[in-house]
Every structure is written in structure tokens, then in C-alpha cells.
């Protein structure tokens, strides 16, 4: 617990300019959003120049690169498509992540206005705003993403730990044992790939 502790007098106070340079994170309630604004139209142009080579002109994704739009209503399907529109809970995360870490290989090259515009375009690509929409710090919290209510806090302590904390069976635990699936049949270790593996590959790709 944060009790009173001995101080060592190491380090030095951080300067405001230094904190401003590194403290870029944006919270769901808008804390951390910089001044600025951007339109869907500007965002479409910026996205085409900076993002579309991997994410597609309509944010639909190219090859194995992440889809940013689409997949609405697929989360309970066998192969959910998780995008900003279908899965992400908060718009703050879109702004924050694009601002700090995109484009891939050229991160931190976008101004605040440009990130507002690209964020507006991603909303448009997900059919969440009209083409004349302008996103700004002032109206940012008016946008609610479709899956904002789709998350629960880790509940393993209630749903799993009691039933997985029973004394285990040691003998005569089951009558028969049959092999139901074989990795060698799938044969995707490590480079090869079969049609059967494509669906699973899609799921894992989303983990990347």
C-alpha cells in the first residue's frame, strides 16, 4: 500500500514540455484529448495517403492486415470479425492508438487535426456518421461505438475457479478415450497451410 516511505532523492522533476511530449494517452471520458478537429472528407484523403495501402480504401483491410470496418453483428458467430465498428468499445482508443502508433512504420507523424480527421473517416467507413461529419474535441464524447456495452470485467473468480477447484479424479475417470482431432491431419506446422486452417488463422490474426 502507498504508505509513507523513505525517499532516495534520485531522479529529477519532469518538465512540463517533457510530460506534454510523452503523455499522449486518451481515456474513454476524453481526458487527454488535444485541441483540434477534422472532417470525414479530409480524413478520406489522409487515409488514402497514409493508411489504405494496408487497411484498404474503405478500411476493409488488405490481405492479412487488420480490417478497421465491417463485421457488425458477428461477435457471436463462429468466425467473428472484430473491427472498430463491430468490436471496439471506445472512440478514445482509436484516436489514441492512431496518434501514437500509426501508420505502421511511420508512427507519430500525424498531427492532432489529422488524427481527428482519420478518426472521423473510420467512423464513416463503419456507417456510424454521415459524410459531412466533423469530429472535434468538443463533440468527441457524443459518439458512442456500437459495442460499448459489450465487455464485462474478468469474472473467472465466479464462473470458473469454483468448478475448477474440486478434488481431481485419479482412477476410473472415464470409460473410453477416443482421439477426436489430430494436428497431423491439419498439417500446418509450421509453414504449411490447409483450407481447414483458414478459419482458425483468421481468429489468431486478430490476436496480433
Amino acid at each position, binding site marked *: 500500500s502507498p504508505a509513507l516511505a523513505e525517499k532516495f532523492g534520485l531522479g529529477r522533476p519532469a518538465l512540463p514540455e517533457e510530460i506534454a511530449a510523452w503523455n499522449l494517452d486518451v*481515456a474513454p471520458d476524453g481526458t487527454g484529448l488535444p485541441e483540434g478537429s477534422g472532417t470525414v472528407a479530409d480524413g478520406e484523403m489522409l487515409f488514402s495517403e497514409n493508411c489504405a495501402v494496408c487497411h484498404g480504401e474503405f478500411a476493409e483491410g488488405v490481405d492479412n492486415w487488420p480490417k478497421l470496418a465491417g463485421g457488425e453483428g458477428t461477435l457471436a458467430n463462429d468466425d467473428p470479425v472484430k473491427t472498430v465498428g463491430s468490436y471496439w*468499445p471506445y472512440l478514445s482508443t482509436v484516436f489514441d492508438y492512431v496518434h501514437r502508433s500509426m501508420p505502421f512504420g511511420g508512427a507519430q507523424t500525424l498531427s492532432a487535426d489529422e488524427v481527428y480527421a482519420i478518426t472521423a473517416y473510420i467512423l464513416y467507413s463503419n456507417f456510424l456518421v454521415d459524410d459531412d461529419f466533423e469530429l472535434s474535441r468538443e463533440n468527441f464524447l457524443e459518439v458512442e461505438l456500437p459495442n460499448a456495452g*459489450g465487455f464485462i470485467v474478468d469474472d473467472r473468480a465466479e464462473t470458473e475457479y469454483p468448478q475448477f477447484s474440486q478434488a481431481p479424479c485419479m482412477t476410473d475417470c472415464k470409460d473410453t478415450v477416443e482421439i477426436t482431432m489430430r494436428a497431423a491431419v491439419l498439417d500446418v*506446422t*509450421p509453414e504449411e497451410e490447409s483450407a481447414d486452417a483458414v478459419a482458425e488463422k483468421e*481468429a489468431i490474426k486478430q490476436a496480433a
Partner: protein
Amino acid sequence: MTDQSQPSTTRRGFIKAGLATGGAIAAGGAAGAAEPDPLITEIQPWAQGLGDGVDAVPYGLPIEYESDVVRRNVPWLTADVISSINFTPIHALDGTITPQGCAFERHHSGAIELRKEDYRLMINGLVDTPLVFTYEDLERFPRESHVYFCECAANTGMEWAGAQLNGAQFTHGMIHNMEYTGVPLRTLLEEAGVQPEGKWIFVEGADASSNGRSMPLEKAMDDVLVAFKANGEALRKEHGYPVRLVVPGWEGNMWIKWLRRVEVTTQAIESREETSKYTDTLADGTSRKWTWVMDAKSVITSPSPQSPIKHGPGPLVITGLAWSGRGAIERVDVSTDGGKTWQTARLAQPGQPMALSRFYLDIDWDGSEMLLQSRAMDSTGYVQPTKAQLREVRGLNSIYHNNCIQTWWVKESGEAENVEVS
């Protein structure tokens, strides 16, 4: 003189040794040798000439005959090799400490090069005095050393829908276990002075991905280390040189590498790595967030698909690893018949909290098929579940946190395969 130690000479000796071993197997293992073994009766070059001088290798690598004990990647898993994963060769290792050189990597924008001279750590947010530390500053705080496992949340994630990758390295190798030395994060936070409104921290790395994650202040003040040494030496570049976060028992994504900033906040930032990723979708389409702890898990590392039985029937060492993010491993049971019956294996050492444990079960293999499984139990009483049990709660699409019991089908040939059983 030095010619005697040239690789060509040694290799000739190695080939001879191989032939001799093959002959011994043909002759029937422990049965008496039909002919004298030339590896014994003939003077070998290494017994006559000289080996390498002490100046030959200032920092050594494994001998060439161990060249298969390396990290491997699976190209189809990710879109590119920069935001990607590779796998520790756990099938070939023993004990618990992972050699750093083959310990898995997971980057989101590559392994960056950050000199100690260029390193800065900032603590800001709800603190009395926002601070900047240099690397030298960190080395002046009181240190601790602990052994912990770092397991990627996605370890075994490819196996949710079925048996897919054929080898413990691929199914369970997103893990390493090292002895870390560093400064408790608590010490640094107290140096800055955490304000009462502070409930969370947000931590991020110096790389382009930043890998920012939120963590409750209680964990930060408990056992989180700001580490600069692993297994006795500086962190490897790919593991966060010069400074990474060590978050005992919690999913590997939170072990921020190239740590550059710790911000004390009132709330979770809900960053990309805790919303889009590292959230676990259940069958009904809702998703768990903040699934930080890695539950009890184990795997038999040998025999396994990459480590088949080559010696025929008779004495067989079954060995593997067990670990839990909720405490120490207290027991590991092993089944050779797909879970019908179990016997308790032997732990090499008493389990340590949130660290890998090594287990052994020595059996007399009669040469018939086996369905090998291991089942870990931790100090909370939690018993590692089957995949069916996990699927019943979670469905097939949660990607992360697959700690199910693994089955290897060992055939009469001694080869092993990744399978699922009823």
C-alpha cells in the same frame, strides 16, 4: 597440433559415434556388446589433441549440434514478422530457467535498439512530483531478484478450435522463465509520491507501438518489478533492453518492454491492447476485459511431437513444465491413458510462486500407445481444466488464456502427435 581440434576431425569422430550408437541399438540396448566399441578402444582426436583456447569465444553460443534448439516462428499466424510472435524450444529444454538467447519474442513494432545513455523513464500523472530517471538512477535504488514466468496471453491460442500445431514449442512455447533483478515499481512510485486519487497506472514502452496498458495501483504497489537484468545479465534487446516491466503471474502483454513511462491515473485508459486485443470473446458475443492473471497450466515437453521416443521400450523419462499466475505449483498429475487414470509426478523442486516448475515421471514403457496428459494444481487448489471444460464456459473464440490439458498421442514407433481426445 591445433589441426586435431578442427571441426572436420571432430565431425568425423561424431559420425563414427553415431554409427556406434546405431549398432548398440541394433544389438538390443542393455544386452552385451558383440564387438568392442571403437569410441572406447580407439583413441579419439579429442583425447589426443587440443581444444579451443580461452580466447576463442568471448561470449559463447551453444555447440553446433544443438542448432535445432532455437526460436521458431509460424509465418501464417500474423500479417508480418514485425508485429508477431516466435516460440521458445521448450521441447528441448530441461530445468526451469529459459536461456535468454532462445526465449520467445513478441513485438508489436519490432525489437528496438535503445542505449542506456538514451534511456529515460518518466513517472507522471497523479503524483506529488513528476520525475525523470536515467538508467544510472535506476541502478541506485535498492534491488530485488525473483524468478517469474512470462507467458503470452495468446499461448496455446491456436488450439482453441482443435489440435493444430504439432509440437510443444508451437502449442506452448510463448513462454519464458527468468531470474529478474530490478527495482520494485513501488519504490519509484513512492519516490514521486502517489496522490490519494490515484487508482490506476498506465504503462508504456519507448517503441512505436507503445504497448500501453492499464494496471490497478494495488498490483503496481505489490510485486511489479522495473527490471534491468535477466538470468544474471542485461536484458536482451528483444526482451526490452535496457529496462522492462515484470508483472508476476499476469499476461505477458503487460510486461512492457523498453519501459519509458508510468502514469498514475484515476481510471483505466482502455488502450488498444486492452480493448481491441487482450479481451476474450465468449460464446454469446460479449467479451471479458482485464483478464490479467494466467491460470494454472502444464505441458509434457518430452515425449512430445518434436521430442519422440527413440530408445525403444524400457525406462522412459516423462517430463514437463507447470506454472500458475495465482501462486505456486503444488502438484502435477500425469496420465498415460488419456485421463482415465492419473499418477502424481515428482516436482524437481518445490513450486515457487508465479514461476515455472519442472516435473518428472519415470516409467517403464512397454512400447504400446499412450495418450499422455499432465494436470497442474496450484496453491489455491485450482486444478488445470480440460479444453472441453473451458469451451463449456467460454466457447471457441476467446483466443487468449487457453490453459487446457494437452494430449500427446505416443505411437508404438515412439513418435508423438498433438491430438484431442474425448
